[in-house]
């Protein structure tokens, strides 16, 4: 089974976001970049599948600036075989532009499953994977928490609201990975050394007129100061008030009803 795992290299989830001077992008100074966490589940599942079948290759693909290659190397260190870097050349592509470039890059490659994370942490759009499936003319299963590769088909469970849908799809197909699918492995020292020798093919992104444009990026307004209700803690309490959990609970319930009007 041949798998292609498409990854995004994104700001660490711990990153404090600051808006750059252009008002449309983030200030990238001091940003630590990581492989988007959902893509790690996709990569792990592709490697596990290869190991259990004892055949096939795992190719890692990423579209982005030069740093995307670092993300590809991290995946090679965990066990992927080779990489494809699509140089975005600083172009701001929208999701459809990214999907068109990925579809063009993988169209003629031997592939059974093209993997994505269910969303790229950061823009959180959940668009590119199913878009690529449409452009390739293959089925997809999104939000997958259980995956099994059978003969010419995949059997999956995907997460929906309050339930799991069991889905079967023929190969080739696109799968997007959700948390819960597996526990991603760390790279071993041996893997890190081996990754240095694995090939990364380079391509240049094609520019497409964007269908959607980001015109402004801003931070949410700062929250108002918290209204502390004293007396909650039986041992010690804020503002030194006497402990009275029941009284504090009644006061909170009153505020939620009369002031906030939410219960």
């Amino acid at each position, binding site marked *: 089974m041949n798998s292609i795992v498409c990854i995004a290299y994104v700001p660490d989830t711990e990153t404090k976001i600051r808006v750059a001077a252009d008002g449309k992008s983030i200030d990238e100074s001091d940003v630590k970049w990581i492989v988007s966490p959902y893509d790690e589940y996709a990569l792990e599942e592709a490697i596990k599948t290869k190991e259990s079948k004892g055949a096939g290759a795992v190719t890692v693909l990423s579209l982005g600036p030069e740093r995307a290659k670092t993300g590809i190397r991290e995946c090679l260190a965990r066990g992927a075989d080779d990489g494809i870097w699509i140089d975005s050349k600083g172009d701001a592509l929208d999701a459809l532009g990214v999907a068109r470039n990925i579809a063009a890059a993988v169209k003629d490659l031997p592939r059974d499953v093209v993997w994505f994370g269910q969303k790229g942490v950061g823009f959180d759009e959940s668009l590119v994977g199913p878009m690529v499936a449409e452009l390739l003319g293959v089925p997809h299963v999104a939000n997958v928490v259980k995956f099994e590769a059978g003969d010419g088909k995949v059997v999956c469970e995907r997460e*929906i609201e309050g339930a799991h849908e069991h889905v079967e799809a023929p190969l080739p197909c696109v799968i997007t990975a959700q948390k819960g699918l597996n526990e991603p492995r760390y790279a071993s020292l041996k893997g890190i050394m081996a990754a240095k020798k694995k090939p990364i093919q380079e391509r240049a992104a094609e520019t497409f007129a964007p269908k959607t444009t980001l015109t402004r990026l*801003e931070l949410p307004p700062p929250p108002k100061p918290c209204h502390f209700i004293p007396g909650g803690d039986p041992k010690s309490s804020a503002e030194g008030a006497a402990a009275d959990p029941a009284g504090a609970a009644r006061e909170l319930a009153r505020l939620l009803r009369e002031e906030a009007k939410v219960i």
Partner: protein
Amino acid sequence: MKFLVFIEQRDGKIRKASLEALSLAARLAGGPVSAVIAGKAIGEAAKELGKFGAAKVYVADRDDLALYSNRGYGGALQAAREKESPDAVLIAATSMGKDLAPRFAAKNDAGVLADVMDLRVEGDRLVGVRPVYSGKARATVEAASGLRVATTRPNVFPAEKNDGAAEPAIEALDLGALEIRARVTGITASGGKELDVTEADVVVSGGRGIKGPEGWPIIRDLVDAMGSGAALGASRAVVDAGWIDHQYQVGQTGKVVSPTLYVACGISGAIQHLAGMGTSKVIVAINKDADAPIFKVATYGVVADLFPFVPELAKAVRAIKSE
């Protein structure tokens, strides 16, 4: 701007998030809009859509649409789009909507304003505001030409009902033979009949402060006290510790929620968690540590050990609701 709204149903029951999208479209259009619904035995459900702003409903009603498939439901959306030629298509950003929208957009050479929490029409542009970096920032995005597609975040836009509205005109869609490739073979409920955290008006979440899985009953009791629109949530720490399933996780690697009321019990408020619930209308924080970051975003705070306090709160909420 001419709107078409995709209406999601499961087992014949229309999802509230779709009614929110339909109401929004009617408001933006300044008048009735069109809708499309796919499923099996959904004729009665389709008629109800008039009350939420649909003047016309395209209906694909057949046996092989009883369960969701992208081919089937997406095929109905595509057929309605071809008949209606809308300028904009709205779809609720549920798991079904997120499955449909990107393929539909790619097929029609369109972009998607994904998971918007604000949407407006400015001239011929559809302009949306969406949270990015899980709510740490917000982006204004727009689609100016061609087909404009937006998915709307559940629980943000009001669903406005007009019981006096006329029944909509119904037009049946003929989809021809369907070759369903990714086929749903079954559905298993993962959390009983509980409401999903993304759709709840009230979310009560537990964090490390509950001390172990045996702490859930008092949190669940507060959910119960809050009523039928309330759901249980959890922090990443307790999901990673195996105290509860991932579907309950609120935060950057879990679900992003915008309820009317969010109650954080024993959650310190890591940046990833704040990102997932920061857009809630009212936030209550209950934590032993007065310096916990959760208090920075909370509307109301109580510095308390949750074990004596949360049961008292459940009692007080029940008392005030029964008044």
